[in-house]
């Protein structure tokens, strides 16, 4: 694979970096990244990874763009309202960089399709908004032994965490199960400062590129928490948990399954009760 003159110019600021160079840029061009959720986190991740020249970007999302999404989901613009997010996302990615092959899945990631989907990619980026999906992505990445860059945002707080299956702590090494339904705000009612999606999503993209390039130190065995109110980052050390139900010494999770979906109504009902 050889770059054209145009591509050499497009990626020149990468190629200039000794850690990347032409060799590294080729690794990026050959890489395949799956972004689960074309929303707040998925948007900035997709755009920067596209700009970086990632060979194939997979986008999976079953939603259409809604007016309340536009405050943070920068893949989608006002004329995209009502259009499938994967369609809108693909257009923006290809307008930014026609080199990128975009594969779209207008679907939800579920236990039934997760493994097959993930197996076709080198790195997975978690940009979903609910715990059942976050746990499923973690489980599928551990089973498929694919690196995962987890991200989460809520109100003014964000978190990034990289999982290299069987080598570093997985999400279940820390959180064994999703929180009881209705207890933790994760639905629309909680709110989020829009730019936080950009901060966390671009850190996820940085991690994904580092993994593909094989440079630096991945964000493994430590959670990076960001507090936008104080503009402060904090690292929490983690390590593989021998009691992890998924990747521990005596795993109890031996196949993929879907956790019960969260219910915002349930929480509402509790408040009213």
């Amino acid at each position, binding site marked *: 694979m050889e770059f054209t003159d145009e591509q050499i110019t497009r990626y020149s600021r990468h190629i200039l970096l000794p850690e990347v160079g032409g060799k590294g840029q080729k690794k990026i061009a050959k890489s395949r990244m799956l972004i689960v959720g074309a929303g707040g986190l998925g948007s900035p991740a997709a755009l920067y990874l596209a700009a970086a020249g990632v060979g194939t970007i997979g986008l999976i999302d079953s939603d259409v763009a809604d007016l309340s999404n536009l405050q943070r989901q920068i893949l989608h613009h006002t004329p995209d309202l009502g259009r499938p997010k994967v369609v809108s996302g693909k257009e923006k990615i290809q307008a930014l960089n026609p080199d990128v092959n975009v594969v779209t899945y207008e679907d939800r990631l579920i236990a039934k399709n997760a493994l097959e989907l993930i197996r076709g990619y080198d790195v997975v980026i978690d940009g979903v908004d609910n715990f059942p999906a976050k746990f499923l992505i973690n489980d599928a990445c551990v089973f498929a032994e694919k690196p995962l860059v987890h991200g989460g945002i*809520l109100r003014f707080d964000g978190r990034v965490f990289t999982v290299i299956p069987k080598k570093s702590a997985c999400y279940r090494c*820390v959180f064994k199960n999703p929180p009881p339904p209705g207890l*933790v705000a994760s639905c629309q009612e909680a709110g989020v400062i829009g730019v936080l999606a950009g901060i966390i999503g671009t850190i996820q993209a940085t991690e994904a590129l580092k993994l593909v390039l094989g440079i630096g130190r991945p964000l493994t065995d430590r959670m990076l928490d960001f507090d936008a109110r104080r503009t402060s980052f904090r690292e929490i050390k983690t390590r593989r948990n021998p009691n992890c139900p998924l990747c521990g010494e005596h795993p109890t999770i031996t196949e993929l399954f879907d956790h019960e979906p969260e219910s915002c109504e349930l929480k509402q009902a509790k408040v009213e009760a």
Partner: protein
Amino acid sequence: MQVKINGKAEEVQGATVLDLLKAKNIDPHMVAVELNNTMLEHDYLATTSVKEGDQVEFLFYMGGGQ
């Protein structure tokens, strides 16, 4: 006694990790707990004592993304 909770030194009273959670009004179901960089199983929150100089992390779930 002084312990570090989520990176901040705090003067606390009480003997167990569960006491700390109660004092802070945190529902144990809402956090993963790390004691001196090792995950602490929820079953042991009530029986694990906190000692001077311990580092405790209460890790909250952070779920959003869309």
